[in-house]
């Protein structure tokens, strides 16, 4: 613990020195326990080219993912998964053989079954089933893969969302997006690997795009809805890009010194995120302008510039996602 003796000036403040040395002892203890794994994380985070993005096997062909998580939709039984036998139980109690051993929320005992009131038909060469509720989606039948075999034992919103995103109904696991970030890295160094946009809250909260036990660099970065997806991209008055660069370098240099002492993986992420923020200052303003899309495109999407909530916001987000992917 060489730094205790190295504290300069300010002699005569004994109490302060004592407090400080206790704090440094605690941190040194934590550091010794970390076994230096943090430095490996820092090296890989700051590597100029992301070697994780090369040659996993098999080599993936997809380059981008836009994941639409739409809460509160109708049941799959009304949209994509026809269950004609439900008609046999219409109005009757569901049989014990189906209900036995299962838990439900918001469903009273002895509730009756209800068949879907919507007509289903097959579409495209694949013959995929769609209900009459989504004619436009049905028109894209041959461009889609529909997975109807997903199941869960979770019966409540929060746990259900966590299960969907992380495979576990409890907090603490990495999520779909962070696994992609971890396993495949990123093709762009001017946008975060995982960008999140939301028109409202979800019941799993920020954990729906969290990194769990992975390095925090893999967590989703949430952009805002409305006019300015990312605030403060422009430099303040009197700060040009060179000076901004100097300030960020200064922060990173001092953070690195702290990192070497405390071995905190969070510091490594912060250094990397400041770098990303600096790059986004260059690419961001042009990227965020969906207004540059032709008017007829905006109309087809139902997007509205500056919309922060509702369907118009969702459409704007989709457009912005498309632009980022480009």
């Amino acid at each position, binding site marked *: 613990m060489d*730094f205790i003796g190295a504290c300069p000036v300010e002699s005569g403040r004994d109490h302060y020195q004592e407090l400080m040395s206790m*704090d440094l002892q605690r941190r040194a203890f934590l550091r010794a326990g970390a076994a230096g794994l943090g430095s490996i994380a820092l090296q890989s985070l700051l590597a100029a080219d992301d070697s994780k993005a090369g040659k996993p096997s098999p080599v993936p062909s997809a380059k981008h993912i836009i994941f639409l998580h739409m809460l509160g939709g109708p049941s799959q039984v009304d949209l994509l998964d026809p269950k004609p036998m439900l008609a046999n139980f219409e109005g009757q109690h569901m049989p014990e053989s189906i209900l036995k051993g299962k838990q439900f929320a918001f469903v009273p005992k002895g509730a009756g079954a209800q068949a879907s009131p919507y007509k289903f038909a097959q579409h495209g060469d694949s013959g995929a089933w769609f209900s009459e509720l989504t004619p436009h989606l049905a028109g894209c039948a041959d461009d889609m893969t529909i997975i109807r075999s997903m199941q869960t034992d979770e019966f409540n919103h929060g746990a259900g969302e966590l299960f969907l995103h992380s495979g576990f109904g409890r907090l603490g696991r990495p999520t779909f997006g962070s696994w992609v970030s971890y396993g495949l890295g990123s093709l762009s160094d001017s946008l975060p690997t995982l960008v999140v946009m939301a028109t409202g809250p979800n019941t799993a909260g920020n954990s729906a795009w969290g990194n769990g036990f992975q390095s925090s660099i893999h967590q989703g970065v949430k952009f805002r809805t409305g006019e300015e997806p990312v605030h403060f991209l422009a430099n303040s008055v*009197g700060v040009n890009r060179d000076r901004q660069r*100097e300030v960020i370098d200064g922060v990173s240099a001092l*953070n690195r010194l*702290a990192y070497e002492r405390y071995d905190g993986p969070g510091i490594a992420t912060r250094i990397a995120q*400041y770098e990303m923020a600096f790059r986004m200052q260059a690419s961001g303003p042009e990227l965020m302008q969906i207004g540059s899309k032709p008017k007829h495109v905006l109309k087809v999407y139902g997007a509205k510039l500056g919309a922060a909530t509702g369907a118009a916001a969702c459409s704007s987000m989709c457009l912005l996602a498309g632009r980022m992917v480009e």
Partner: protein
Amino acid sequence: MEVAEALARLVIDLPTATDRDRLVSAFRRTVTRAPSAVELQELTRLLKEFRASSEKEPQAWTSLARVLLNLDETTTKS
């Protein structure tokens, strides 16, 4: 930004004259401990760099204040 400018003014207005005293004071105000020898070296180097690229003294100290306010240690609970 306004906070950085205020911190810079505060430190410039200190009655003591030396840069070192000003750097230590600014550091202690943001990180609540004295800088180590290595950190003080780094801060001195940064101040020199900012002075070279700034037109006026307050600008250089504002840049330094911005660095201190953005340190992981400043913004994170230990």
